[in-house]
């Protein structure tokens, strides 16, 4: 890692000059044959791969309006060209959203449009050759599907839709990505991305109970598979082991404990993340999601609350109702799924929890809007609740809060640099460079306002920043879960709850 060249932190995000092929060495690893087969994909590239891939592309063009329209209407105005964190970090022109789309668009023109068939030269139409497929592999695994480009596009073209389709096409010819397919294999067989079996999960939750007891003197429970609990909590599995994720999980537990709301987690659906979205596979996304519905029915809960995870909240908020709804077996009095931030803030606003902000007085906090929460979901009742509710929650447990530069937060927030299935070691160079815009914005408030904590509500963001910020000379201890701050400030035994 020492040889990754990071930009000097100045607090300013500079648009680089084009540097051709700057990121061609950043290549995701290919999945092993058995990992592809487990998910129903061919083990490896068959001889007639081109025909299969084009058929798949034709099929997707009739199934997804987004893909069809987005491949047609781009006018190449260039508004997106300086918006992708991977372009800003690498300068590789294929990381400009329009150029990334163009890799598929040139094949679309060649095979699916009249103009491309008649005048291939005028409109850059190309066969789907080995070389083109190689470019796809490279650059469709350098898109974190954060949707930032789509905010600025006059037609709302969302490169995420195109990279999802590209990965679906590549999977259809046995070109799976190792990280995503490995994770999906674990979740469909064991129930979570990390492949933690029930006994291990049980153990770690018991350890957690002991830890919290030791630290606070209070019996905060972390229940697993408790039938008839009121709430089923679905957390990203990183919350069970990684830091600062687990501090967030402790926070959820304290909130339920203090509110007096019975809750449970599920060993069958012990994963909130849904990598089916990353690889653009509708059926797998549904297969992963339906475990959660099944668990909720099996455990006979009244409502579903979900933990801090960005893309999973997009899947839950925007897609669950279509994929695994309707949720008419749950209590209609409550929104399901509800985000843990909505749940906790509501309790605090109803004065059901006792909070002592002074426990966070040593912190000056800023908030990193996670891309999928910001541009793929909502919280609360009005648009933009996904920005306001986490901030309100932080401010209700901390006295010192500062926002980063407005060009880098809320709907125009930058991705952490590892979303969309890119949180894997072989892409470390890309991940470090892709984190540059956020690192610059963070640096500015650290210098100016003395910020020492960046809170967030996404498991991938947390894992990414703890790893890459040190490359910029920023200590990993700045990275915090939002519910870690809640956990710090909550006074146990202070209130009767709801």
């Amino acid at each position: 890692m020492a040889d990754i060249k990071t930009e000097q932190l100045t607090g300013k995000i500079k648009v680089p000059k084009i540097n051709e092929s700057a990121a061609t060495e950043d290549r995701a690893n290919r999945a092993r044959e058995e990992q592809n087969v487990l998910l129903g994909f061919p083990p490896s590239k068959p001889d007639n791969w081109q025909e299969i891939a084009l058929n798949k592309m034709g099929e997707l063009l009739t199934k997804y309006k987004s893909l069809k329209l987005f491949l047609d209407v781009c006018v190449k105005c260039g508004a997106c060209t300086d918006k992708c964190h991977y372009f800003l970090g690498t300068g590789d022109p294929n990381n400009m959203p329009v150029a990334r789309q163009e890799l598929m668009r040139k094949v679309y023109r060649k095979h699916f449009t009249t103009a491309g068939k008649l005048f291939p030269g005028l409109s850059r139409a190309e066969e789907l050759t080995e070389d083109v497929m190689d470019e796809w592999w490279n650059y469709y695994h350098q898109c974190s599907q954060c949707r930032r480009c789509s905010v600025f596009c006059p037609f709302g073209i969302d490169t995420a839709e195109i990279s999802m389709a590209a990965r679906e096409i590549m999977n259809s010819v046995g070109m799976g990505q190792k990280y995503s397919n490995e994770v999906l294999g674990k979740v469909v067989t064991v129930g979570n991305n990390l492949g933690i079996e029930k006994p291990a999960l049980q153990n770690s939750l018991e350890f957690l109970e002991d830890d919290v007891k030791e630290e606070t003197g209070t019996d905060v429970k972390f229940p697993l598979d408790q039938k008839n609990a009121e709430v089923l909590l679905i957390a990203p599995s990183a919350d069970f082991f990684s830091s600062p994720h687990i501090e967030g999980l402790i926070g959820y537990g304290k909130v339920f404990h203090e509110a007096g709301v019975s809750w449970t987690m599920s060993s069958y659906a012990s994963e909130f993340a849904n990598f089916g979205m990353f690889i653009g596979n509708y059926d797998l996304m549904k297969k992963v999601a339906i475990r959660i519905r099944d668990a909720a029915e099996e455990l006979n809960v009244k409502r579903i609350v979900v933990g801090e995870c960005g893309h999973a909240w997009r899947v839950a908020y925007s897609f669950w109702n279509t994929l695994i709804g309707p949720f008419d077996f749950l209590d209609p009095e409550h929104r399901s799924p509800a985000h843990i931030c909505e749940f906790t803030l509501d309790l605090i606003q109803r004065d059901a929890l006792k909070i002592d902000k002074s426990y966070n007085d040593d912190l000056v906090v800023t908030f990193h809007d996670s891309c999928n929460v910001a541009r793929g979901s909502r919280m609360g009742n009005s648009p933009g609740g996904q920005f306001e509710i986490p901030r309100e929650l932080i401010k209700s447990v901390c006295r010192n809060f500062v926002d980063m530069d407005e060009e880098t937060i809320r709907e125009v927030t930058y991705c952490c640099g590892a979303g969309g299935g890119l949180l894997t070691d072989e892409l470390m160079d890309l991940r470090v460079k892709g984190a540059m815009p956020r690192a610059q914005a963070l640096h500015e408030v650290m210098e100016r306002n003395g910020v020492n904590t960046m809170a967030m509500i996404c498991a991938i963001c947390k894992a990414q920043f703890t790893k890459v910020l040190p490359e910029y000379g920023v200590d990993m201890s700045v990275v915090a879960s939002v519910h870690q701050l809640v956990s710090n400030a909550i006074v146990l035994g202070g209130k009767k709850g709801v």
Partner: protein
Amino acid sequence: MKGLSTLSLVFIFLCYTSAAIFLAGFVRKVYEYAVTPSPLKIPTMPAPTTKGGVVLRMTGEVLFFTSLFKGNKWTWIGGYIFHIVFLLIVLRHLRYVLVPTPEVIYFIGPFGIHAGIILVVSAGYLFARRIFVDRTRYISSGADYFALILMALIAATGLAMQFLFMADVSAVKDFMVGLVTFSPVNIPDDHLFIVHLTLVMVLLVYLPFSKLMHAGGIFFSPTRVMVDDCNEKRHINPWDR
């Protein structure tokens, strides 16, 4: 059809053919956009929570290019002016086909003339931007330059008829009215007009098969036209009921 010159017959045929290709091509594309399903809710958030809100969002996009404004002010100013003057010019040209011509079209007339000049200038600006900014130079292809050159040439030939080699406006109008009323008359003996008309026909035929389809496509973009009511109303995927 009696008394029509060979040249007129050829051009009358071409006019009807290009208009037919334009209409059929445009309608076919719009039909494809309309019927291709959207399996999932994918509005770019934060998004409106009601249909009325979506109408407002789209009004902003279509009338003011709000997203482009957020994206790049320099492109916005050039692109916005280009589109506004193009609209004025199209409206001005209605006087050649509408009998009687509504007052409001005559009112637009003089603006239409200035618009022609501005169209050429703004097309030049957009062309220069493509060449001089390294990122747009990288992404621009022949088709992108072609569209700008075509529009500039149409405007330039139109302006030339107005200022350099005065066209016989009443002969032009007779010809155009003849076309739209399906009782064609001879094409005016004016080379500039014939070039102008030919370029317009090229534009018509080219449009449905090119990026210029953004004109129709924008109204179907799922990230812009979808309502954020994911919880309140179950969105059904037509291919996974």
